[in-house]
């Protein structure tokens, strides 16, 4: 079992790297990525969300909890990289937190293929976060394929919103 497994990792990282160097994200529609300055680790604020909640994570990184992909793609483009850097800074600041990266696809792929594609996207995001210093045992990944859309219409804008990897705090 060891050998094929090692091969898988090699192949996977090779393809991820190849994908990373590919195509600039010309027309990525939705995510306005705020390059939020790292929130100071103040222990103030008695009100507001507490550490370990999704609300706290969202408040800290803004829209950067989610990254978006081009059709059928799973590479991390510059907008994704900025968002993942914001996430990595947050998780560096709160090393006790664990989280899930959910990979999703739009409805224009077949169900089974999209489950695999969602896994690939979540893995891309995870690998990038690991490269930024987040340890892999803090990151769980799960693919929902096209089963959990957030935008419900059947048009380009909705599909673009649904092709995503969303980071969700476990605790």
């Amino acid at each position: 079992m060891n050998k094929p497994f090692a091969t898988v990792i090699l192949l996977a990282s090779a393809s991820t790297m190849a994908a990373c160097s590919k195509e600039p994200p010309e027309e990525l529609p939705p995510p306005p990525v705020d390059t939020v300055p790292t929130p100071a680790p103040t222990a103030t604020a008695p009100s507001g969300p507490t550490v370990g909640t999704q609300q706290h994570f969202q408040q800290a990184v803004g829209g950067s909890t989610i990254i978006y992909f081009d059709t059928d793609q799973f590479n991390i483009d510059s907008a994704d990289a900025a968002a993942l850097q914001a996430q990595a800074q947050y998780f560096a600041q709160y090393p006790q937190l664990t989280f899930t990266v959910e990979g999703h696809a739009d409805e224009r792929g077949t169900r089974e293929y999209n489950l695999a594609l969602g896994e690939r996207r979540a893995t891309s995001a995870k690998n990038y976060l690991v490269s930024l210093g987040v340890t892999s045992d803090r990151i769980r990944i799960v693919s929902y394929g096209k089963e959990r859309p957030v935008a419900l219409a059947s048009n380009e804008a909705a599909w673009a919103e649904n092709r995503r990897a969303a980071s969700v705090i476990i605790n």
Partner: protein
Amino acid sequence: MTKLTILLTSLAALMTVPALAQNQDLGAPVGEGGPVESVSVLGGDDDDGPLRGTVTDESDWRDLGIAIPAFATDRDQPTPANASGTAALGSEIARVITANLQNNGLFKPTGPDSLPKPSFAQIRAPSWGSWSGRGAEMLVHGFANARPDGKLVVGCYLYDVALQDELIREGWEVRPADWRRAAHKCSDLIYARLTGENPFFDSRIAYIAETGPKDNRVKRLAVMDSDGANHRFLTLGSATALTPRYSPDYSKILYLSYVDGNPRIYVYDIGSGKQTLVTENQNPTIAPRWSPDGRFILYSQAVAGNTDIYRVPVTGGRSTRLTTAPGIDIGGSYSPDGSKIVFESDRSGTQQCYVMDADGTNQRRITFFGGRCATPEWSPRGDQIAFTRIGGGFNVAVMTPSGRNLRVLTSGWQDEAPTWAPNGRIIQFFRTTRNSGRSALWQVDLTGRNERRLPTPVDASDPAWGPIRP
């Protein structure tokens, strides 16, 4: 050497132990029906007429009128199969047969509600004069008798009205609860005799029942007879269930469930209601398939962004990896003789269909038509592969196993995931509606002309048609 063997054996044993899954989402076990046994039934005078040849185009057949009056009974008596007794049951059986034959575009059946009721004696000696005046070329007669032990004996006769000749007859012994199976067996007898094709009515379908809004869809495992009867939900809906496949002997269903939070394939045992993971492993497993002999399971496993196809014995044990290409290799459908597997892969950059030998060797691409090829399914006859053709929308299409003679059969916005009737003449699939995301099961024959929606209690997807029942 011995040590090594022991080590290997215990290792295999370790991997064989099927992990009992947490069954939080399972309903009560359904159990299986009893056997349907053929029994000989008496005829009039014996001499089978000639076969009518095979179907090449439904237009020759559309007008073949078949009269299907109520089945008679030797003595009208109570039966658990019908609250009003065996005579009423005889009418019900004729209605089921009429609906079956109506729904495939080949025949023009007339059911029992507009026909005279033959007596029990007339089943073996039709009153020809009263039938020839009705324009029916074919006449179906039959009986439903309750035996002292409660079991039913159902006889089925097909007559050629013009020749005043019996074409075929058969009888079955069934538990009262399985009376519809006798009606399906009779439908199959008539269909096979008149078309020269193999039967398909006495079969079941597993599928995914869907309810709720598009962004919060509940997806449950469900099963039903080929005509939609005997419908059951097998899971409760708290966990998303997807992509079921009946085992060739109907004892198990493979399907994907998120019951532990991750997409994983389970082997659900219909008799016991228990389920086990297909492989004990931390990785997501998707796209389950049976080998034609039911001894092996194909599944696809994603490891660090790379999905490949694996084979594992149904009894458990070590998995064999069949594909190694970087990218997504997924699905897989065996040729009926088990020697080859058609599967989909995006190794060329887009989803395309490939064929390999069953051991994973000789992988070669078969589709080059410009669009993409997904969810290929090998016909039970071996001569065609059905698939989801992606090019703009999704359509159901067929081609030969070498990728030639591509024919598009459907034209919905999204027609996905074809599954074959046991005789390889009809294809079911699911159709999704643009924007609303509503889904339904449809079927189409190989001409592409006879398309109809299947009745299901709620929205439906991922149909998986099982073989003819034993």
